């Protein structure tokens, strides 16, 4: 990377580790070298104590019992453990899981694995704002249903699902409620017990902690939830996840949780003002701009927006030496398919190709936003000057009636 000032607006991909978190972690690389499972010497005791402390910090953030936190390597592993682990553990009760088409791949691909293992999975549509239809959800529940897995907040759009209503529905039907809360934990209040969530996956590196450590909340009482371990070995984490604990990572995760508990409300308030400034400026500066997802049920730091008749990756190339964001355009992936999340919202492929996700974070400044507004607006205008379909649109050509040569 060059020396020039770079603006990072891709915090949904990963957040920078907070320097206070780094400070908390450093002693645990060399000065406290122990394995938390070494129960017979001070090195192990110190490591175990540090892990216990971090577990407390995290459980306070979620308002849960510290024994309900299972450490993993990240949210992907937590999603896998929850879905495959429940499927195996509850095989006698049923084999049906309900989820959404807009879930993260870690959930969708775990569900696909469950199908290969003989399970049945219903993938529900969402409405044009990205929300689950509660009537559809209830109608999908059947006697063999063991779990509903619905993410708290979407990674691409920040859309927040009606967690309380889903929790009530799960309680009514005696179905487990699992949520991938990766994008919500540490950013907004996420107290699973209040909402009837039985399993919740999340990770450290989306909340200003280090990468490589995550957790699964597993409800201990009423009901006592169990998952079959997916990683076998020394029986760590109450037998649900074997493997030596990543002590420095867990210490950092704990520190990040404590900072989040104290600061997330202030962060959210500040970031929603900056996010709105960014979004409103685009709407004022440019024509044919569409915000994706429900603006009334959305994470405070996320803006997913389509600049019509401009291809997302090309647009990013106009400013990606200075600003880091991500796009739902096919060209950013090897698959050549645009974002399946936006397609599920009913966006046409053209608008999905034109989408950019801006995700702000604790270290985003107003100057970052002002500069981004200028660079992105300039980029959109540049790309539209180059765009034949923008020219046709401006001439009043009905683009729907054009016979395109698909390739």
């Amino acid at each position, binding site marked *: 990377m060059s020396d020039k000032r770079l603006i990072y607006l891709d915090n949904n991909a990963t957040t920078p580790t907070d320097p206070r978190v780094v400070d908390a972690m450093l002693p645990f690389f060399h000065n406290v070298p122990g394995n938390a499972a070494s129960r017979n010497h001070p090195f192990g005791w110190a490591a175990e104590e540090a892990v216990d402390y971090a577990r407390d910090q995290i459980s306070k953030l979620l308002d849960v019992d510290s024994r309900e936190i299972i450490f993993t390597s990240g949210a992907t592993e937590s999603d896998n453990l929850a879905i495959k682990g429940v499927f195996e553990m509850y095989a006698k009760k049923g084999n049906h899981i309900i989820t959404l088409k807009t879930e993260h791949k870690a959930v969708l691909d775990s569900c696909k694995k469950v199908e290969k293992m003989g399970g049945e999975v219903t993938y529900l549509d969402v409405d044009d704002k990205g929300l689950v239809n509660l009537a559809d959800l209830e109608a999908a529940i059947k006697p063999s249903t063991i779990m509903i897995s619905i993410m708290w907040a979407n990674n691409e759009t920040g859309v927040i699902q009606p967690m309380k209503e889903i929790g009530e529905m799960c309680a009514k039907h005696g179905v487990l409620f699992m949520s991938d809360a990766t994008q919500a934990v540490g950013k907004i209040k996420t107290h699973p017990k209040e909402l009837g969530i039985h399993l919740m996956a999340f990770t450290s590196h989306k909340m200003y902690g280090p990468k490589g450590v995550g957790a699964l909340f597993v409800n201990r009482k009423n009901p006592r939830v169990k998952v079959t371990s997916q990683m076998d070995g020394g029986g760590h984490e109450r037998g649900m996840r074997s493997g030596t604990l990543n002590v420095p990572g867990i210490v950092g995760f704990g520190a990040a949780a404590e900072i989040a508990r104290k600061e997330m409300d202030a962060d959210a308030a500040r970031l929603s003002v900056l996010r709105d400034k960014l979004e409103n400026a685009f709407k004022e500066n440019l024509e044919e701009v569409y915000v994706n997802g429900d603006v009334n049920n959305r994470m405070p730091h996320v803006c997913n927006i389509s600049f019509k008749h401009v291809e997302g990756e090309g647009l990013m190339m106009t400013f990606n030496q200075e600003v880091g964001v991500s796009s739902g355009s096919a060209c950013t992936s090897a698959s050549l398919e645009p974002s399946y999340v936006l397609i599920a919202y009913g966006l046409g492929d053209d608008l999905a190709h034109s989408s950019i996700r801006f995700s702000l974070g604790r270290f985003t400044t107003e100057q970052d936003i002002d500069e981004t507004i200028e660079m992105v607006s300039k980029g959109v205008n540049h790309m539209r000057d180059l765009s034949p379909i923008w020219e046709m649109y401006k001439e009043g050509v009905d683009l729907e009636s054009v016979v395109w040569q*698909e390739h």
Partner: protein
Amino acid sequence: MAYSEKLLDHFKNPKNVGTLDKSDSNVGTGLVGAPECGDVMRLQIQVDAEGIIEDAKFKTFGCGSAIASSSLATEWLKGKSLDEALAIDNMAIVEELALPPVKIHCSVLAEDAIKGAIEDYKSKNS
């Protein structure tokens, strides 16, 4: 993914952006791709009395590689006869811009746009 200097230059300072009068008999227009696929390329040639391409213009909706491929194509077209233009192969564009494998389709699109423009010109002047 790091792009080549040549590609970035064509993207940042695209050559021959613009529109020729498509109703003109000495102008041929090729329009390929679809918005749903994430790229649309319009390439136009203007042919003189001797059958030489005297001007070429493009507009492209697409990623950086698509824009650079069409910019490069217009540069190569100018001064060529129609037969020489028809001989432009997409792999030459791939090599010149060092396109990564996932972007080869951008060069295919440029070749298709060239062929489309020539075909359009020929159908107008047959």
